[in-house]
């Protein structure tokens, strides 16, 4: 019998802690497959954030650090500066990256740190039980915006990819989605690009995944994807914001 699909080597044989229908597993798989394809597993260090993916340090089969809430890009900076011979990536959610860790992501990107940050945006705090995130949509109900996000009170959701795109240094910034098979295939291409540039020492690379949270949205997994397509994608437009390779004509 021929094996046609199996767990990537860069994922360990341990049980995920994600809810049924959660797309973190898909994002993990895309990263792990790419690590396998590039053969960098033995030479890579990753960082797990605080949030649902806090246990990512157990899932990826490379050396991993668990960072304080929001601090992953700073920890990544310390790791990359200490070991420039290794590939460093951080994996963060929207509360971690776009609220408590705003300074760290902006300045790591601004320095052009030679790291990759994978940003999973599902518009809610999952781990703590469905509180409002900096990316929660206008009027969206969460446990801390029970009457819906009031943009006059708490402001509008932050578009992180666009924000980072105002900086000079980043080499590659793309927003992708995990909401359909074609989108997931495109997402894989973005992961591959980001890690390729990382390996080549090109600088800071950033991939934002639009994802779902069936559990805390209270919507079943498939309908969650539809909900995200209808509500998140108009606000968080997919696309490549920065690709210096392309911009420089491949030079």
């Amino acid at each position, binding site marked *: 019998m021929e094996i046609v699909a199996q767990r990537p080597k860069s994922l360990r044989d341990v049980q995920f802690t994600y809810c049924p229908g959660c797309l973190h597993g898909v994002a993990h798989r895309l990263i792990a497959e790419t690590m396998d394809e590039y053969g960098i597993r033995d030479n890579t260090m990753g960082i797990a954030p605080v949030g649902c993916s806090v246990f990512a340090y157990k899932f990826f089969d490379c*050396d991993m650090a668990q960072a304080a809430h929001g*601090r992953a890009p*700073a*920890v990544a900076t310390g790791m990359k500066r200490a070991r420039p011979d290794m590939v460093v990536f951080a994996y963060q959610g929207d509360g971690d990256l776009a609220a408590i860790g705003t300074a760290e992501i902006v300045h790591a990107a601004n320095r052009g740190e030679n790291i990759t940050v994978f940003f999973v945006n599902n518009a809610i705090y999952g781990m703590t039980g469905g509180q409002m995130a900096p990316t929660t949509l206008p009027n969206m109900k969460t446990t801390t915006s029970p009457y819906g996000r009031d943009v006059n009170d708490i402001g509008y959701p932050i578009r992180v990819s666009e924000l980072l795109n105002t900086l000079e240094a980043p080499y590659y910034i793309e927003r992708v989605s995990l909401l359909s098979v074609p989108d997931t295939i495109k997402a894989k291409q973005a992961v591959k690009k980001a890690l390729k540039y990382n390996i080549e020492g090109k600088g800071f690379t950033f991939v934002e995944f639009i994802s779902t949270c069936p559990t805390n949205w209270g919507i079943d997994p498939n309908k969650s994807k539809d909900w995200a397509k209808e509500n998140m994608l108009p606000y968080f437009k997919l696309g490549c914001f920065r690709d210096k390779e392309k911009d420089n004509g491949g030079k």
Partner: protein
Amino acid sequence: MSQKILMKGNEAVAEAAIRAGCRLYFAYPITPQSELIEYMAKMMPKVNGTFLQAESEVSAINMVYGAAGCGKRVMTSSSSPGISLKMEGISYLAGAELPSVIINVQRGGPGLGDIQPAQGDYFQATKGGGHGDYRLIVLAPNSVQEFADMASEAFDLADKYRNPVMILSDGLLGQMMEPVSFKESKTDEEIEELGKQHYEWCMHPNTGYTERHHNEINSLEIDPNVLEQHVLELEKKYKLIEQNEIKYEEYKVSDDNEILCVAFGISSRVVKSAINELEKEGHSIGLVRPITVWPYPYEAIAKAIGPKVKKVIVFELNLGQMVEDVRLAVNGKVPVDFMGKVGGIVFTPAEVKEKIEESL
């Protein structure tokens, strides 16, 4: 030992850290430690080291976490308000058992306080500061030479116990110039070897090394039973440190002592001057100076109380912090008195002498 040169404490400790093999330094500017960060900015590129001015003290300490997780000798420095910001990261460093060195050039507080020397961060440094049960090894220098010597000592202790080490200095030691001599610089090969001692647990490539590993730098243990074990293991380590690493200086301690003084850091220099003056007037006064303020020399202080000692007096540049540890050490044997000075003002030898004379 090289020839002595005249240097500020802030610069001397930076130079000594580089010589001790520190090749990564992350910090944020703050007075009165600016000479330290500036010295590192100038000198790190010359040894192919990393100098990085972080966007905040919070980021700086987390960069330390990342680099220490790779087993490298890494340092940060700040002054009191900045050290408060680092406390989150320090707790994580302790929880994940990462060797690292943190320098606090203390200034007056609370809040923004001022930029003059103070010792108001004693509680923060020795009793916690960050969340959870953890200990820092805390070294308190009282001269520029000792400040510099403690850099290599701090890195050695950090490596030995896989624990963050703080050098608790102050604005006076940081800013004043004194003659200082330095140890030989470690070679690049020696520094490489120092890093390899941590390969069993730290992050490093799998290629080119022995068995394949998956090392995790982590302070999270979601299972209470596992966390309990982890914290109890930390406690064992802290007890070992208490057994092995207590350091103190005795100055003119004898059976003739009428008064025993206790002071750490820059305060001890002032107390020594007062003791010398009183000696000329025929009085025997002793001083115990804790050099490690954690682990604390409780027994040494208890033993130093001679038969004629009427009182123990503690001198600090705060409202009375270390005095609580001295009371524990003295345990009611004789009265414990205290003199403090706050606001960034340092007591004079005359003021200290006067305080001692009240009890003679």
